[in-house]
């Protein structure tokens, strides 16, 4: 069946990304304009805009299944792409789409449900001989049960949300005293984030690498993997930087883990794009963590080294087309690194930094790809995800990719909000990162500060502050003084200064 028009049930950079692949396939896109960001890029790029700015309901439209189905039917779309986050891994939404004869661009509701529920996923993995950390057999019902299970598997343990994902609803307990509280925190967070307070317990693998495999399967049952992504640079389980391939994998280990990932996917008759996440310890042992049944934020690094457009494949597969690729067709070429540009203040422990983008400039270099949902004038609202853009850089090998990344970062300029860019500048020069031998504990254990600080640049900033002080004092006493030496002043700066008096 052919897709002529599709609804994107998402916003931000991923909506822009989906529009790009849909356009290339000659498919019309429908997006939803919300009152939170009526002039967002994705709204402008789409063919058809559903105006939802009058919506006053409590929950965002991207989480409202009934509304989304109504919108899809109203605009007579053939398919719905959920993107990532929001309803991307909601089996009920996928089922609702199918019930209304809308193609859901993603796996079957059954696969989403089974893999989305971590306790069921663990059982499937166990049956298919997928290596796993020891853990509880099912959901933990009480503190007493938690303590018994933790005693059996040994501390430290990790409490995880059964319906979890995206690094939320996870807490580590190092001993019995901590366990009740961590259990409560994980349950609270799970209830809020996933509407399901169920948690389970697993042996905590301290300081592993986070390695994940990209999977593609079609509706005929063919499944291949597109190599791994290294996602160990994370803070509080939130990924900040991803690369492909990983310097930790030999070709043999890659083949072995890839086969395991494909086996798991086949066990649930998986189709569409998916990601099998593993932890890899320092002995080269790997443990299945979870499978994400959606396109990932970090999919571009895989696209850059394999040359496969993953969104295009998702759409074609949903339309019933065969994969058109065999495992042997997948060759990994070069190296790619993705830096997540988040509206966060790295000098204040990555605290959210919402605000208005005053200036924004990305470099125009042939090794740079930018997936962005923002532009100058965009407002970064605190109720949406803090990730605003992705800087994806490639090179022939890892060293070249890092060198290129440094060059690119020097030419990314953002004003108005604080971002994670100073963190990446630090990272690109850090010997542990450059050496490639880092684990998920790197940021919390090895970094004393999260931004690149140069005494010289502080002196430059000090000069600027002093200059402002002098100009203000002079301007105060004599209004006719031309305190910007005849130059036009940054209107924003001027405005900000005026407001301060």
């Amino acid at each position: 069946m052919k897709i002529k028009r599709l609804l994107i049930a998402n916003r931000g950079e991923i909506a822009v990304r989906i529009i790009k692949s849909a356009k290339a396939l000659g498919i019309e896109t429908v997006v939803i304009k919300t009152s939170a960001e009526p002039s967002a890029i994705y709204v402008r790029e789409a063919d058809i805009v559903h105006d939802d700015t009058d919506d006053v309901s409590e929950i965002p439209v991207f989480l409202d299944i009934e509304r989304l189905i109504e919108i899809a039917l109203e605009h007579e779309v053939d398919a719905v792409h959920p993107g990532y986050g929001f309803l991307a891994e909601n089996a009920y939404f996928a089922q609702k789409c199918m019930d209304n004869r809308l193609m859901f661009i993603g796996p079957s509701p059954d696969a989403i449900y089974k893999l989305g529920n971590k306790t069921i996923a663990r059982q499937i993995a166990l049956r298919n001989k997928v290596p796993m950390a020891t853990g509880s057999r099912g959901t933990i019902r009480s503190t007493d049960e938690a303590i018994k299970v933790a005693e059996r598997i040994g501390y430290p343990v990790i409490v995880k949300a059964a319906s979890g994902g995206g690094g939320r609803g996870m807490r580590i307990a190092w001993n019995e005293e901590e366990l009740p509280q961590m259990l409560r925190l994980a349950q609270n967070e799970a209830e809020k984030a996933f509407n399901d307070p169920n948690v389970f317990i697993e042996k905590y693998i301290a300081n592993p690498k986070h390695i994940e495999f990209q999977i593609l399967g079609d509706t005929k049952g063919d499944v291949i993997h597109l190599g791994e992504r290294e996602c160990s640079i994370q803070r509080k389980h939130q990924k900040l930087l991803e690369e492909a391939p990983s310097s930790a994998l030999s070709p043999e280990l890659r083949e072995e883990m890839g086969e395991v990932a494909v086996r798991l996917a086949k066990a649930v008759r998986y189709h569409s794009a998916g990601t099998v996440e593993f932890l890899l310890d320092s002995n080269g042992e790997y443990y299945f963590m979870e499978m994400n049944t959606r396109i990932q934020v970090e999919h571009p690094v895989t696209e850059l080294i394999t040359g496969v457009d993953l969104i295009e494949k998702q759409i074609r597969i949903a339309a019933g087309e065969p994969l058109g690729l065999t495992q042997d067709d997948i060759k990994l070429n070069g190296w790619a690194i993705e830096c997540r540009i988040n509206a966060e203040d790295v000098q204040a422990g990555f605290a959210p930094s919402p605000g208005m983008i005053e200036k924004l400039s990305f470099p125009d270099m042939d090794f740079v790809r930018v997936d962005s949902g923002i532009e100058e004038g965009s407002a970064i609202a605190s109720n949406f995800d803090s990730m605003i853009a992705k800087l994806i850089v490639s090179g022939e090998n890892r060293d070249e990719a890092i060198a290129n990344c440094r060059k690119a970062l020097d030419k990314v300029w953002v004003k108005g909000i604080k971002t994670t860019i100073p963190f990446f500048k630090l990272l690109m020069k850090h010997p542990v990162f450059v050496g490639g031998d880092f684990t998920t504990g790197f940021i919390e254990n090895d970094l004393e500060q999260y931004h690149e600080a140069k005494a010289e640049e502080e002196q430059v900033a000090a000069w600027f502050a002093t200059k402002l002080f002098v100009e203000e004092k002079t301007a105060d006493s004599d209004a006719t003084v031309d305190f910007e030496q005849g130059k036009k002043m940054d209107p924003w700066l001027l405005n900000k200064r005026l407001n301060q008096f």
Partner: protein
Amino acid sequence: MAMAKTLLQKINKLYAVNAKKKKYSFSLPLEDRIKVDKKEFDIKLKEDDKLGTYILWKNRKYPVEVVFKRQNKYEILLNGVSYTFTIETPTSMKRLRFISRKKGSSDKEVIKAPMPGKIIDVLVQEDAEIRKGEPILILEAMKMQNEIQSTVAGKITAVHVKANDSVMKDEILIEIKKK
């Protein structure tokens, strides 16, 4: 305000002092040159459409903006990195040194919100004894629940927030009398 001008006319130096009390001194009138390791370099404040206001320093462009200003305190964002200074005159500098010598340690600890967010749960009450590291409340920001812990051991003297309150960064949450 005429005083300010006379003040600047009389003095020949200003200091930019950072949070760690490191000071950078600048001669007045302020020149478009600064000295690094005994070498002088030109520094220019410029402006274009792409970057807005920026500083040209050693042939590199540094977008610059003021994030915050109050009296003589400035937070500058230079190329995405934040720097905070107070600008001091030679006289105020002396006074600052005097105050910092006199300032004893206070027995009151104030726990502030490390980031803007929503209070999910307050785990302590007024008059409660608390250990260092003990969780006092849960703050949700960007969909993550963060446990705020006590930085000291002592007794809770005031609780300024309750569940479901929204708080700003640096808003005072709890006050503790140190043991």
